[in-house]
Each structure stands twice: as C-alpha cells, then as structure tokens.
C-alpha cells in the first residue's frame, strides 16, 4: 500500500510514473486520493478512499465497545462526509492520510459522545483545530518521516505498552480510566504510555 520513499528518492519519483510533483511530497496512494478529492472533487477517488478507511473508522468506533453498531455506522458517515468537505485543506507534506483521518474520526467521536450524553457545549471539536500555517520545510520532512517510522516501530513495542497505547488511542480512554480498566496503578499506566511514546518518538528523532 504505502509506497515508501524518502525525500532523496522522491525527487525522482516521477520516474515510476506515479507522481510528477515537487520534492518531498508524500507518495502513498491515500494521500494521492485525498489530493484528487480536494482538488477535483473526484468521486472515484473518494469511493476508493471510503472502501479502505470506512471499515477502519468503524473499527475505531467500536473500539472498547463504546458505541453501538448503528452509531458506529453513523460515525462512519459523519467522518467520511467531513473527509469530502475538508480534503481541500489536506496538506500531503504535513501529515499522512491516516493521521489526518484519525484526527477527524477522533473529533467526530468526541462530539458524538457529547451529543449522546446530552452534553450541551458551544464548542465543537473542530473549533480546536488551528489554522494550518506554513511550516519550515525541515519540519515537514521530519514529520513525514516520523509518520512512517512510527508505523514501522509500533510492532516492536512490548505487549504491555502496546496494549495501553491502543486503549488510550483507539478507545480514547484517559490515563485514569485505563488504570481502572486494567486494574493498574495510575503511575504505572502513565509511565508505560510515556515509555511507549518515547520509544516511538526517540526513533522518530533519530
């Protein structure tokens, strides 16, 4: 799926016929699809994107069985509609497609939880997103490589750290909720999460 390239080879990426764009752009097919959706409202690209991500978003919704199957389908609809509406703002140099989808799914799920709890707030999670801005190119390169490294390194995490990280990220649990569910002291949860992140991050910085 991911066509891994670093910046040095991306310069010549057009040689494989998939990209003839400037240096440093992401070359994975889902970023490419998002760009097509954003730039030309390409429904074919959107359908492909849906077939890949909708089942993952549904799995995300059902993580920790926090939502019913029908709410999970509703969440899939909301997220995919946002993908369509916001694709024009996707910057393939700044984020991986999966990271971008994750932030939308997280926001929609938070808002859905609040709605289901009849929680009345003037703030939607999207209000928390900051205006995107021009970042230094070395930062972009850094984050682009970071996303790829994280993906590779996840499988090297020890099971206890991987389990907690999944609970925190996919189930959206706070540290204290995770501690209660796993019957672990809060300090243990915090240090495992921190260690796991440091491992992913330390190598991201390497």
């Amino acid at each position: 799926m991911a066509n891994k390239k670093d910046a040095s080879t991306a310069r010549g990426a057009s040689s494989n016929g998939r990209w003839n764009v400037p240096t440093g752009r992401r070359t994975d097919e889902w970023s490419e699809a998002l760009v097509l959706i954003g730039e030309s409202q390409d429904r074919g690209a959107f359908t492909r994107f849906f077939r890949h991500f909708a089942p993952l978003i549904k799995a995300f919704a059902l993580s920790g069985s926090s939502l019913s199957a029908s709410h999970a389908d509703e969440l899939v609809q909301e997220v995919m509609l946002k993908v369509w509406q916001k694709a024009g703002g996707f910057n393939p140099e700044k984020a991986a497609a999966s990271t971008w989808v994750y932030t939308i799914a997280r926001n929609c799920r938070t808002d859905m939880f609040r709605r289901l709890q009849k929680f009345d707030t003037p703030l939607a999670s999207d209000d928390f997103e900051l205006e995107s801005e021009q970042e230094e190119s070395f930062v972009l390169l850094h984050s682009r490589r970071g996303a790829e490294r994280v993906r590779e390194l996840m499988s090297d995490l020890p099971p206890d750290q991987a389990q907690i990280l999944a609970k925190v990220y996919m189930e959206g649990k706070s540290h204290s909720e995770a501690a209660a569910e796993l019957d672990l002291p809060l300090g243990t949860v915090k240090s495992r999460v921190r260690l796991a992140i440091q491992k992913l991050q330390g190598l991201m910085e390497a």
Partner: protein
Amino acid sequence: MAHHHPPMDLLIEYTTGALPVAQSACVAAHLSYCQQCRQLVERLEDVGGAHLERLDPQPVGQSVLELVMARLDDPEPLRYAPNEASDTQLPGLLDRLINGDYADLVWKRVTQSLSISYLKTGDPNHEFALYRIAEGGRIPEHTHSGSEMTLVLRGGFADESGEYHPGDFLVREGWDKHTPVALEGEECICLAVLDAPLRFTRLRHRWLNPLLKLRAG
C-alpha cells in the same frame, strides 16, 4: 514564545480526545501560542494514525456508502468566522467563548485588584474563567483542593516558582499554596480551569471563600 508547557501526559490525553472540554480548550489555547507543542501534538497524532491503520477492518454495508454519496452535494455546515472587531488577540476558540472584548464581559470583583469572569463551556465538572489582576496586584495566598490549569493571555505574573508571560501554561495539583502577583506595567489576564474552588488561606481573606464556589458549566 511560551516557556512553560503542558506536561507530556496532558498533551497525550489532549491528542487522544480524553480531556474534558474545558481542559481541552485550555490546552488548545496554549497550542495557538506555542509551535513547539503544536509539532509535538502532530507527532502524537501520527501514533493515532498508525493505530488506525492497524485495526481489524469491520464490514461496512454498501448502504452506508450510498448514503454518504447521496449527501456529498449537501451544503457544508456553517463554520464560525473569526470576530475581526475583537481586541482580545485571542486564539479563535477563546474569542468565540468571549464573543466580544474583555471590557464587554461581566466581571465579578473579588478583591481590589482581582476580578473574575466566568465563561460557559458546558463542561459539568470544570470552571472556565478569566482572572483579571490589576498591574502589580496580588491574588491572596490560596490553595486548590483539585487541579488548576492556568494560561496567561495578557500581561504576566510571578509567584513562588517563577515568572509567567502570555502563552505560558501551568498546572497545579492539590494543596500547594501560592501567591501570584501581576507584573508591573500592564494588567494581567489569565485563563484558569478548575475542578475545585480556590481556597484563600489567610484569615482576612477567608470570608471570601464562599464567593468562590465552583461555577462549572
């Protein structure tokens, strides 16, 4: 540039959507001042993206795709437009809660140099308020029974552990006593998110404590 940042644990909980809305808004407001933390959050989000890709896909019916395709031409939902007339120079999120200028808010005077304005976030467990301290003014010595997040928005203050300027973020837990004093030259405005009321510790200020009942919501 901010010199005091949210701890890593808090940034992780912010990134995963686990924070209550009032605390989340306070962290988001710090991010609008702090490129360093923004970049860290983006990298923490990559961990979320990587997890998403590794989930076991769950079947989604063709009807869901059809429902979405049928809605693609719907008008996009209205988005909040920044208030250009505002003088607060605040991150858009806070600007929206304040909805005008500092001067237009209802300020409740607590002491000669301290006024508080309570903002509504809908969070049932946290008070979300602006503290306005006259230049050189002092907040009487106090403790917190719960946690307090503070973000400096204007001016600055100093306490027993340091000096804080716009964008600086502090978290205090439990019973540590402190006595913030606004810096000279400009009034100080801070955002404070509390899950339990302040408690003034000195006898001559204790009568004020009932006035500081937590106003969540």
